[in-house]
C-alpha cells in the first residue's frame, strides 16, 4: 500500500520517493534540501507573479527535459487544492474596493483578488516543486543517513522515516478493524448519521490498538538498540560531499531575503 500524496503533510513528503537514476537523483540529498531555501525565498522577490512564474517555468521545463515529469504531476496534486482554495478566498469571497470583473448574484470575481491568489499560489508552488523535486529523488533512508552523517540525532531521523510509514499503517489498521466490525454484522454504509456512527465505532479500537502497538514498538526498538549510545552506521553508503555547495546555497538565501524585502 503506497502513501496517498493528494494533500500536504511531512509524512507524505517523506513517502514521495520514486526510484530512478537521473542527474537529480545523483545530487547529494542535502544539496537538494539546501537548494529549497534560496529557491523558495527567490519566489517571494517582487510584488507580482512574474518572478515565481519564471522560476516555475524554468523548473518545470528542467524537470520535463530530465524525464522527471512525475515530480511535476506530484507537485500539481499537492498544490491544486491549495490553489483552488486561494482563488475562492481571494478572488470570490474576500471583498475589494475595485469593481468586480464579473458578478453572479452574491458572488463576484475581482481582478485584484485573482492577482493576489495567483501570486500566492505561484509562490507556494515554487516551494512545493522544490521540496517535491528533492524528496522524489532521494530515498528516505539515504536522506536519513545523510542527516545522521551531519550530526542530526538518529531519533529525529527515525521520526522522519517512521512518518513516511505512519499513514499507510494507520489506514491498514483502520481497514482491519472495519473488516472485523463488518464481519460481525456492523453496517458501515448508508446515511450520513450511520456513517458518523461507523466513524465513532472505528475511532476507539483504532486508538486503543495504536496505543498497544506503540508500547510493543517501543520495546522492539529497544531490543534493536534504539537508545544505544555511540556511533551509528548505515547499510546504505552515502558519500559525504558537497558541503561547500550546500553552504553557498544556504548563504545565497540571505541576499535573496534582502532582495525580496526591498523589491
Amino acid at each position, binding site marked *: *500500500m503506497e502513501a496517498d500524496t493528494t494533500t500536504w503533510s511531512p509524512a507524505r513528503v517523506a513517502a514521495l520517493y520514486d526510484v530512478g537514476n537521473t542527474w537529480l537523483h545523483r545530487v547529494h540529498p542535502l544539496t537538494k534540501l539546501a537548494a529549497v531555501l534560496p529557491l523558495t525565498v527567490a519566489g517571494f522577490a517582487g510584488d507580482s507573479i512574474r518572478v515565481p512564474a519564471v522560476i516555475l517555468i524554468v523548473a518545470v521545463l528542467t524537470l520535463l527535459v530530465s524525464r522527471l515529469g512525475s515530480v511535476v504531476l506530484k507537485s500539481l496534486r499537492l498544490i491544486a487544492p491549495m490553489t483552488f482554495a486561494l482563488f475562492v478566498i481571494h478572488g470570490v469571497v474576500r471583498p475589494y474596493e475595485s469593481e468586480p470583473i464579473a458578478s453572479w448574484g452574491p458572488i463576484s470575481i475581482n481582478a485584484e483578488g485573482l492577482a493576489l491568489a495567483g501570486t500566492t499560489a505561484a509562490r507556494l508552488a515554487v516551494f512545493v516543486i522544490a521540496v517535491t523535486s528533492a524528496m522524489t529523488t532521494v*530515498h*528516505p*533512508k539515504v536522506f536519513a543517513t545523510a542527516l545522521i552523517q551531519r550530526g542530526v540525532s*538518529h531519533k529525529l531521523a*527515525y521520526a522522519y*522515516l*517512521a512518518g*513516511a*510509514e*505512519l499513514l*499507510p*499503517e494507520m489506514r*491498514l489498521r483502520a481497514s482491519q478493524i472495519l473488516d472485523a466490525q463488518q464481519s460481525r454484522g456492523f453496517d458501515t454504509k448508508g446515511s450520513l448519521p450511520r456513517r458518523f456512527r461507523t466513524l465513532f465505532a472505528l475511532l476507539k479500537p483504532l486508538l486503543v490498538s495504536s496505543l*498497544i*502497538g506503540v508500547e*510493543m*514498538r*517501543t*520495546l*522492539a*526498538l*529497544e*531490543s*534493536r*538498540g*534504539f*537508545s*544505544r549510545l*555511540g*556511533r*551509528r*552506521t*548505515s*547499510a*546504505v*553508503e552515502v558519500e559525504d560531499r558537497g558541503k561547500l555547495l550546500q553552504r553557498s546555497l544556504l548563504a545565497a538565501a540571505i541576499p535573496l531575503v534582502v532582495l525580496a524585502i526591498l523589491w
Partner: protein
Amino acid sequence: MVSGARGPDSTGSRTAVFAGFQEFGVTYDTASTPSLTGLTLELHSDKLTLITGPSGSGKSTLVRVLAGFIPRLLHGKIEGSAEVLGNDVESAPPNSITDSIGMVFDNPFDQLTAATKTAFDETAYALENEGLHPAEIVDRVMGALESVGLADLAGHHPRRLSGGQSQRLAIACALAQQKPILVLDDPTSQLDPTGTAEVVSMVGKLRREHTTVVLVAQDLTHWLAIADRLVILDGGRVTADGSPASLLAEPGLLADQVMIPRYVAIWAELRSRGIELGDRAPLGTDQLLASLQASDGAGG
C-alpha cells in the same frame, strides 16, 4: 552469580544457567495486584524452555524481565532478586541485557520498526545502531534472512509480508544481531495455520542448531515436540516444572492451567479406558500414533 553456573535443571540435564529468579515479584505501577510473585526459577542455556499458563499468569511479564525491559522501561515495584546473564535486573546498565537477548513478540506487525521500506532494511536497523561496517551489515543481514528463508523477499516492504513471514523477519532481526538467547512471546497466537507452521519449523531449526530459546505459548500443540522443558505459571508463580512428557502424563491435574493438546487428551482418555500406552505423554500426533501402533502390536 547466575551466569555461567552449571547445574541440573528440572529435566535432570546439566547446562549453564543464564537467568535466575529468587522469590521474585513484579507489580506494575499501573496495577494493584502483582503480575509475578514469589517466583523462583532458573533458566538454562542450550535448551528450549516452554513457558505456559492461563491468561494473567505472568508469562509475558516474565519474558519482559528476561529481555531487560522490566523495570528499566516498564516500571513497577520489584521484590526478591533476578539476574539475567550476570546482571541484576534492577541495577543492570542500559542495554547490558537487551544486547544479548533477542525478543519476538506476539503481534507480527507492531514489532516492526515502522521506519523501513524493505525486509533488508528492517533486519539491518539494529546492526546500524551497533555501528557495524556496511559490508558486515550486508553479510549478516543476508545470512539471517537466508536462515529464516526470507532472502528472496529482502526487497519486499515489511508490511506486505504475511504474518508468518513477518514473525520470521522478527526472528531474523535477532539472529542478525547474533544474540545468544532468543525469547519468543506467544509468536503464533495471531497467525493462521500456514504462518504457525512456518514459525514452528523455524524455531525447531534454531533448537537443532543449539540456540537457547525461551518460548511462551498458550497453546502447546505445536511446541511440545521441540521443547526440552515445560514450566507452568499460575498466579505469578511456578506451579509445575519438568520435562513435557512427564508433566503431561497426568493432564487432568493441569487442565485448569494449561490448554492440553488434543493428542495428549486422546492419549489420556485411552489410558483411562485401560489401553496400555506407556507412562510418558505423547509430544505430538506422530508419537500418539506410534504408541497406538506399539500397543496394537503388543495386543493391547
